[in-house]
C-alpha cells in the first residue's frame, strides 16, 4: 500500500500478462502461507489450458508440507497436471530440465524452498536457455528465498492485496488482487503493479515506476 496510488497510469496500455513468450521467470513470495504467487502464476496459464497440453508441476517436499499440494478443482478448469514430488532441490531442477526436453508439455512449473546451493546462476541459465530453445515456458516459484544472482529473464515478487468487494455480499472477499513487483526483467522496464486475474491472463494496472524514490513518493502523497 506504500506508494501504489502515487503515479497511477491507466491499465489499457499494458497487454494482459500471459506465458506467450517462453522463457524462465522467477516468482518470489515473502510468506509461505500466502497464496498470491500461486494465483498470479495460475492466472497466466490460459494459453497452456487452451493448447490442451499438460503442465508439469514439480515440488520439493518442504514446499509441499508448508504450502500444500495444488488442488485441481481450484486450478483453471481443463488444466492437465502431472505432479512430481521430490526430496531435493537438485531433483526439482533435474525434473524441470527433463520436462523442458519434451515438446508435449505446455509449461513447466517448479517450486523450490529456501536458497539451495544447487540453484545457482548456472542452473538458472541452463533452464532459461533450455526453455527458450524448446519454446516451453519455465516458471520457478521460490519461497523463503533471497533473490540472489540468477539468469531468469523476469523476476517477480508477489504479495496479496485485499480483494475487490463481492457485489452480492459486502462481507465477502471478491476477485483477488495482488501486488506484483517486477524487480528485474530483460526487454521490458521493471515496475510495480496491482494485478488481477483477467480472461486472457493477468491484468496489470496502476503502474508505479520504480525510478521514483520512496521518499519522493511519500512527499507527493503527504
Amino acid at each position, binding site marked *: 500500500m506504500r506508494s501504489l496510488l502515487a503515479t497511477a497510469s491507466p491499465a489499457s496500455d499494458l497487454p494482459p500478462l500471459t506465458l506467450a513468450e517462453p522463457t524462465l521467470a522467477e516468482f518470489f513470495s515473502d510468506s509461505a502461507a500466502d497464496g498470491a504467487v500461486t494465483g498470479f502464476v495460475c492466472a497466466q496459464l490460459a494459453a497452456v489450458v487452451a493448447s490442451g497440453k499438460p503442465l508439469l508441476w514439480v515440488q520439493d517436499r518442504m514446499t509441499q508440507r508448508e504450502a500444500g499440494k495444488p488442488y485441481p*478443482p*481450484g486450478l483453471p478448469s481443463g488444466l492437465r497436471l502431472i*505432479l512430481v514430488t*521430490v526430496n531435493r532441490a537438485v531433483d526439482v531442477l*533435474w525434473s524441470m530440465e527433463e520436462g523442458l526436453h519434451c515438446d508435449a508439455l505446455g509449461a513447466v512449473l517448479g517450486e523450490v524452498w529456501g536458497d539451495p546451493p544447487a540453484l545457482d546462476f548456472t542452473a538458472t541459465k541452463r533452464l532459461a536457455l533450455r526453455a527458450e530453445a524448446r519454446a516451453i515456458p519455465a516458471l520457478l516459484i521460490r519461497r523463503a528465498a533471497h533473490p540472489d544472482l540468477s539468469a531468469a529473464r523476469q523476476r517477480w515478487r508477489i504479495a496479496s492485496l485485499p480483494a475487490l468487494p463481492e457485489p452480492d455480499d459486502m462481507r465477502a*472477499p471478491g476477485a*483477488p488482487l495482488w501486488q506484483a513487483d517486477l524487480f528485474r526483467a530483460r526487454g521490458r522496464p521493471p515496475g510495480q503493479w496491482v494485478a488481477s486475474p483477467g480472461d486472457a491472463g493477468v491484468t496489470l494496472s496502476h503502474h508505479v515506476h520504480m525510478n521514483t524514490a520512496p521518499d519522493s513518493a511519500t512527499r507527493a502523497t503527504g
Partner: protein
Amino acid sequence: MKDESAQRILTFTAQRTGAAACVHMGNVIELRPVPLPAAHARLARARATLVKAEATLVHREPSQASPLLTPPLRASRPVAPSGTVMTRPATDAQGNAISTGPTTDRIALSRRIVSLHLPDFAMNRWLRWATARHEAPPDELPVVLATEGPHGPVVSATNRAAILAGLNRGARVVDMRALCPTLRVVRADPDGDHAALKKLMLWARRWCPWTATDGADGIVMDTTGSDHLWGGEAALLREIEGSLGVLGFNARVAMAPTHGAAWALARFGPLRTIATSDTLATVTAPLPARALRLDADTVLLLQRLGLKSVGDIAAVPRLSLARRFAKTQLSHNPLARLDQLQGRTAEPVSATQEAPRFAVQVKLAEPVQDPTPYLPDLCTALCTALADAGFGARKLTVTIYRTDAEVSQVTAATARASRDPNHLRRLFDDKLERIDPGYGFELITLEASAAEDMRAMQSRLDGRADDGAALAQMVDRLSARLGPQSVRTPTPHASHIPERSLAWAMALSQAPRGPDPLPVTERPLRLLDTPEEIRVLYAVPEGPPAQFVWRRVPHRIARFAGPERIAPEWWNDRPGTRLRDYYKIEDDIGRRFWIYRDGIYGDDRGAPPLWFMHGVFG
C-alpha cells in the same frame, strides 16, 4: 394386480423364448422377436461349453485313470505362458515343443533336464563364510554343524576330516565328541541355507531360463535348447560343475530327459551322466530303489520284496505293483515314481518366475564392475527382437550374474509400450550405479519382464510424431529416476469431502480417467496434505472467529464468505465423524484462506468443535 402379474409373465416368457420386451408404465409398448442369430449364438455357446468339458475330461483321463493301463509317454515340459518367438535359443525350442501339441513318443522325452545335487551344501556354505572372514579351520580339524534334536544337538553336516574320523550325520553331538575330542561344533542355520539355495537357484539362470530348487540340497534346471550356447551337453555339465567348484560347492550333475531320471542319476549315478531317451532305461536300471525318491519305509518294503534296483521294479508286471500301491501317496508309490522317471507322467520344472519372453544377454570374457558400456548393444538387440514380434516393453530388468554366486538386478518401467533403444537405455541412466557388482560379474541379461502388443502405426497425417509418445517417455524417465510414486496425476473421485474428491494416481500406471468431478463452488488453489488445527479467539456459534493463530502467526479476519456445509459420508466415515462448515476468509493484510469448523456447537458429539486450516486461495 392382475395386470401386473400378466405383465411379469409376459416379460418372463419373452425372455425365455428369446424375444425382447420393452415394458413401460405397466403397458407393453413393443414386443418384437429377436432375430435367429441370438438363438444360434446361444446354441453355439452351449456346444462350445460341451466340447470344452469333453476336452478337459479327455485331458484328465491319463492321470486319474486306473494305473493298470500304461499311460502314453508325456513330455515333462515346463509350464510356459505361451509358445511364441523367444530370443533365447532355449525358449525357441520351448515354443516349438508346445506348438506341436499332442504327446508322442518322439517328443515326450525330448526335454533336457539337469539335476544339480549339492551334497555338502550347508558345510560348504559355512566354509565359504569362514574363509571370507579368514577364520577357516585347518583341513585336518573335524568340524560338524549341529541342529537341535529331541535329545540334544544332532550332527547335520560334516567336513571331510570329520568323515575320516568316523563321525556320521544324524548322530548326537555328545556321542561324537566322545569319539573325537578335538571336534569343533558349529550351530547350523537351515533357514540361511534355504535362502542361499534360492539365491544360487536364481544365479543358475545364467545357464537356462527355467530353474527351481529341488529339496534342501538340489536345483533342477530345464536346459532344453540352451546347451549349444555352452558348447554341448557334456561341456555344459562340466561348466556347471566347474563354476560351482570354484565357488566352493561340491556338485554332482546329471542330465536326463525327465526330472526323476536326472534326480536319480545326479545322486546315485556315475559322474556327469548324460542319459538320452534311448539310453534312459539302461542307464537307470542299475540304480538302487532309493533313486526313485521314495521314503525309507517303502524302500525297505521293496527290499524285503527283493526289488533292489530300478530295473527290478521296472521288470515287475505293472498290474502287481498297481494292486499293491494304488492308493498310496506319491512318496510311497514306486509305480508313480517309475512313471515320472520314465516320462509317462508329466513333471514340469516349475520355476518361481516365468521365463521372460524377450531376453538378450552378453557374456564377458572376464569379470567387470560396470555394466554401462554393454547396455546400448543390449537395448538395440532387445528392441530388434521386440520389433520382429510386434511388441513393446513395459517393464525392463537388467540382471547381472556376479562371480560370487549372487544375482543383482535393477528394474525400470515404461508408461506405454516402447521399443526405442535410446529411450530404454536412458531409463537406466542413474540406476546402474545402484547395482551392486560385488567382485565383478561376467554375464549381463536384459529382459522385457512385461511386454505388450505394439503395432507400428502412423498417428498423425502431417507426419509429425505423436505427442502422447513424447509425454509417456518423459514420464518414464522421471519415474525411473525419482520412483513411480513421485510422479502422479490427479484422478477425480465422486466425493464432496475435499481431500477425497481426487486421488493422485501414478502417472506410470496410466490409470483410466475417473468420473467427472462434482460441481462445486469456489475451491482453493492449494490444499494442505492434512488440515492443520488453528487456535481461535472470539469464537461465536455462528460464523467464523474474529481472530485465529496458525503456525504461531495471528491472523485477524477482515471478510469472510460462507459457510459451506459438507456433511460426512456415513458409508465411508467412522461413526462420530462431524460435519464441516467451510469459510473462505480474508485476513487483514489480504491473504485468503479456507478454514473449517469440525462440527457445530451443541451437536452432542463430544467437545466443542475445533477449527482447522485446509487450503489457500490465490
